[in-house]
């Protein structure tokens, strides 16, 4: 048979038909798709039951309840808000939601490390064992005690709102050094203001749950002010639709159209730094038009009328000071750049509201403010009678935790404590409250009163986050030995001689004392969600181990076997104290807790309370009547700060006793540096100890960060007058430093200012974090507060030069 063309076609058609009828092609397609879904390099998540573990977030001081989703109880896949927690009611901020990325961060330090080369050389870190690391630190600490120079040991901690701070304090006092510092925060200046006005070193708290009119002087309420979880939850409620309930009015005073300003019912643009001048102008109007709470001022306020100081000298009171020329409406108008009638209208509106409150604190309350300005905003609230029971302002309630054991203190400790702390040498005015980190660093950098032999850094990153950070780097050069307890290879850890890495936040036990800005007393325990993944150790346990091995009075002062036992003891004290309860009601009842009420106690002893707290519940107590909390010399709210006399200040001018506008112009010649550089914060950029996780970096605008370059905001008019367009590269120069950045035209920018985001320009870590943009902290100007002496870094003078 001849195999012709026809037969060939018949065979081919038959073959195609036959193959299609067979399962072969379908099997092949199926295999191909299965294969294409199973490329070995495409990760396949391990399967297993998903469970949730409740805890409390410790990435900031906000005290939000979280629950972490775990697979097979050993892998954290995401962090959610705890819907039963009253602070955040199930919501969460982007940092919290990305929290597991810190747990699995490639830049975590996996075990103790010792620098074998020059300081700052990342390649010089050699792994050592925990015994060696703790042993070496302990030997050095003991030697300094033997040499009777314990005061040459210093520490900086990033925690001011948890028991670790108290543990450090206990350790330092028993050891014999006063040189324990915390990272700067608005709390520093607020405590000074509380001391002067009410005789108590406590920050103010605001009953925003019941306010109907919120006048915010530059407070970034929605970018993360106070407790971000609380503020976001409240903001949602303030903007409830008509069907859901009455709306609350928010008025934002700020130089830049921040997110809070854009979201407020009204934005009042003012000159940078002049918010306090507006508040004084409003106070002037309220007094002049008798719109203030006269009976309250009469009964509860000292220094509103003229007064006499302890030496019998008559002094001007706040009332007549407000009528002086420097506080006239015209002066306020000139300082703020607002027309006088607008100030008058705002003052009348504020005075007319039943539940109006003034809040303040730029930079999310994370930097100290000018204490005089804190007191101006406070005084505006006083004029409104806001400290009455049921008023909008009070002092943050204290949490009656168990007292730490009395420190006997041996001879060495007494000698060490007799030495002044290293921030207080020199001829500056006596400090009002607490330690002064900036004074310490600049003294150590320039003329140390005594050498700092050991500097320990705990959960803080001053090499990145401290404004004017050059001071820190210079100070470190003169420090004998630097110890870092960081979990991350950050800018500060890189400078250390030895690193004793802490567990990551989700792996360790911690607590949260107080809810920033809230009048309720608050306490929560952050239970670990997972066992430690790496060879790390809780810094609290390291401190206890050091104390134990040193023995003597140091060991006695820190008798606990573990950090967990220490916290349990504190909670036992809390359970024994009067008042308070564990919050187990519906989260929406949180706002209904009345001043002076007694919550129904729902635990019997420390163990029972501990169990509830470590399951993710929080302890709370009702706010106290602020008038009962006053401890000032006059027994009243003091608007004339006679405490200054008792603190050893020789005050000449009357006005220095009073809340006043005391803006400190940043250094530099305005001719050479015509613009004002101001930092701003975005909720999608983490600017504190924790770097921006990749999840958050993905959400950053390409007009904030593009490639490795970050942008500064300029008003389109200002840019035009300088011949700059969107995206132009410029050199931004301040007296403190310079950076190459790009221009973003932003109509919400004040024409005389240039704005730069906080949180960029980190170095090191990994390729997902390091080397992105410029760090505004290195450009800012640091000034001493006229009252507290604390470093304030609100701005810097700046000039722009086009590149190329």
């Amino acid at each position, binding site marked *: 048979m001849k195999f012709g063309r026809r037969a060939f076609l018949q065979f081919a058609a038959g073959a195609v038909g036959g193959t299609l009828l067979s399962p072969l092609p379908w099997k092949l397609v199926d295999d191909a798709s299965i294969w294409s879904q199973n490329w070995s390099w495409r990760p396949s998540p391990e399967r297993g039951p998903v469970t949730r573990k409740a805890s409390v977030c410790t990435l900031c001081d906000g005290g939000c309840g979280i629950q972490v989703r775990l697979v097979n109880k050993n892998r954290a*896949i995401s962090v959610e808000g705890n819907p039963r927690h009253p602070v955040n009611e199930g919501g969460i901020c982007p940092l919290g939601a990305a929290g597991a990325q810190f747990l699995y*961060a490639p830049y975590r330090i996996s075990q103790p490390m010792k620098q074998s080369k020059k300081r700052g050389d990342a390649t010089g870190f050699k792994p050592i064992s925990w015994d060696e690391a703790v042993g070496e630190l302990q030997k050095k600490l003991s030697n300094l005690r033997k040499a009777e120079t314990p005061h040459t040991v210093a520490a900086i901690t990033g925690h001011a709102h948890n028991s670790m701070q108290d543990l450090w304090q206990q350790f330092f006092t028993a050891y014999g050094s006063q040189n324990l510092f915390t990272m700067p925060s608005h709390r520093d200046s607020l405590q000074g203001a509380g001391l002067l006005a009410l005789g108590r070193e406590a920050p103010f708290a605001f009953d925003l749950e019941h306010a109907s009119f919120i006048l915010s002087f530059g407070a970034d309420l929605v970018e993360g002010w106070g407790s971000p979880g609380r503020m976001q939850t409240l903001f949602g409620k303030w903007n409830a639709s008509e069907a859901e309930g009455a709306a609350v009015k928010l008025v934002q005073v700020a130089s830049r159209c921040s*997110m809070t300003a854009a*979201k407020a019912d009204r934005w009042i643009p003012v000159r940078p730094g002049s918010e306090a001048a507006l508040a004084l102008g409003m106070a002037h109007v309220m007094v002049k038009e008798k719109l203030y709470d006269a009976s309250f001022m009469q009964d509860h306020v000292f220094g509103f009328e003229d007064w006499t100081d302890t030496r019998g000298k008559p002094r001007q009171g706040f009332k007549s000071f407000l009528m002086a020329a420097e506080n006239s409406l015209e002066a306020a108008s000139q300082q703020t750049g607002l027309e006088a009638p607008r100030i008058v209208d705002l003052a009348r509106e504020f005075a007319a509201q039943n539940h109006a409150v003034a809040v303040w604190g730029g930079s999310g309350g994370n930097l100290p403010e000018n204490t005089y300005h804190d007191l101006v905003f406070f005084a505006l609230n006083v004029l409104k009678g806001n400290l009455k029971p049921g008023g909008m302002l009070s002092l943050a309630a204290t949490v009656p935790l168990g007292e730490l054991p009395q420190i006997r203190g041996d001879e060495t400790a007494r000698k060490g404590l007799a030495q002044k702390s290293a921030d207080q040498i020199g001829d500056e005015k006596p400090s009002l409250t607490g330690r002064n980190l900036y004074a310490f660093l600049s003294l150590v950098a320039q003329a140390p009163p005594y050498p700092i032999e050991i500097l320990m850094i705990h959960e803080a990153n001053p090499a990145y986050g401290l404004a004017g950070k050059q001071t820190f780097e210079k100070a470190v050069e003169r420090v004998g030995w630097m110890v870092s307890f960081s979990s991350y290879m950050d800018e500060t850890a890189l400078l250390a001689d030895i690193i004793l890495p802490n567990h990551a936040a989700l792996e360790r036990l911690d607590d949260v004392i107080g809810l920033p800005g809230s009048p309720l007393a608050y306490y929560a325990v952050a239970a670990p969600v997972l066992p430690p993944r790496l060879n790390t150790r809780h810094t609290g346990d390291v401190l206890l181990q050091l104390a134990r091995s040193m023995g003597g009075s140091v060991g006695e002062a820190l008798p606990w076997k573990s950090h967990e036992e220490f916290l349990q003891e504190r909670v036992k004290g809390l359970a024994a104290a009067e008042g308070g309860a564990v919050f187990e009601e519906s989260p929406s009842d949180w706002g209904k807790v009345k001043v002076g009420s007694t919550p129904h106690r729902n635990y019997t002893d420390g163990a029972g309370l501990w169990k509830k707290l470590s399951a993710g519940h929080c302890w709370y107590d009702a706010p106290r009547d602020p008038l009962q909390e006053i401890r000032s010399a006059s027994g009243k709210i003091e608007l004339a700060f006679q405490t200054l006399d008792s603190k050893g200040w020789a005050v000449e001018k009357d006005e220095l006793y009073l809340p006043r506008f005391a803006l400190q112009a940043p250094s530099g010649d305005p001719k050479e540096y015509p613009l004002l550089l101001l930092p701003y914060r975005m909720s999608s950029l983490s600017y504190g100890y924790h770097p921006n996780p990749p999840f958050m970096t993905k959400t950053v605008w*390409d007009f904030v960060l593009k*490639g490795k370059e970050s942008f500064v905001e300029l008003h389109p008019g200002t840019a035009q007058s300088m011949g700059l367009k969107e995206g132009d590269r410029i050199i931004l120069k301040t007296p403190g430093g310079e950076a190459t950045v790009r221009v973003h035209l932003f109509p919400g920018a004040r024409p005389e200012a240039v704005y730069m985001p906080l949180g960029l320009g980190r170095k090191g870590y990994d*390729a997902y974090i390091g080397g992105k943009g410029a760090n505004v902290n290195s450009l800012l100007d640091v000034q001493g507060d006229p009252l507290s002496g604390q470093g304030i870094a609100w701005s810097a003078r700046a000039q722009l030069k086009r590149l190329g």
Partner: protein
Amino acid sequence: MSEQGHKQGAVRFGMVIDLDKCTGCMACSVACQAENNISFREDESNKLRSISWMEVFYLDNDQDYANYQYTYLPRPCMHCDAPHHAPCTFVCPVNATTRDEENGIVGHIYPRCIGCRYCIVACPYHARDFNWWDPAWPEPMEAMLNPEVSPRMRGVVEKCTFCHHRLLKARAKAFLEEQDLYEVTYMPACGEACPTKAISFGNLNDAESQVAKLAKDPRAFRLLSKLNTEPKVYYLSKHEWVRKQGDKHFQNSNGNKRG
């Protein structure tokens, strides 16, 4: 299915985003990334190449300084309800993207996708992203991957699924508890995370549901409604300039806008 319209089940999932409550914190976008195993790269600033199911847009009112206002606008997939087809499902040559007529969710089946990207071109909301690279997580971040959502491979398109896997999970639970599967509601990861409760989610066909009520609010609008794509995502804003821009009624002059 006919030319006149499509079959409609009893359930039609939709979302309402209240822009008056939204503070642009980006928690929704972060929670979405964690939930859906969205990959990230060292540099995410090229937004044309960045994968983001819950993208956030920036709108402003085009005024100067004292009158300037802006808002962020979170944009998931609109899960278009247009008769016959959503823009993306209409063009897909391999039926990789389809609308589930039982619940209105527009899904995307990755193994079917041939990466032609017609759907990306067709989508007027830029809701779809293409995997230009193999997804890779820095060691040891693979440990964070959610086993309920499969990571995608290079060469396929992906987009928001309204956290469809959460619906499956909720229905599986309802099935075991012998409850009505069509009564089941759930919350996608974005709405769960939102700290101001700006995002509501539910069955638009249920007149008693919060989303159905809010969708009738006088402040409600939908994006590019003139295209008749019938998005199932509604927005609320008290500002007329926001509502107008939702339909792109006027142009911006600043040149720095996205979206």
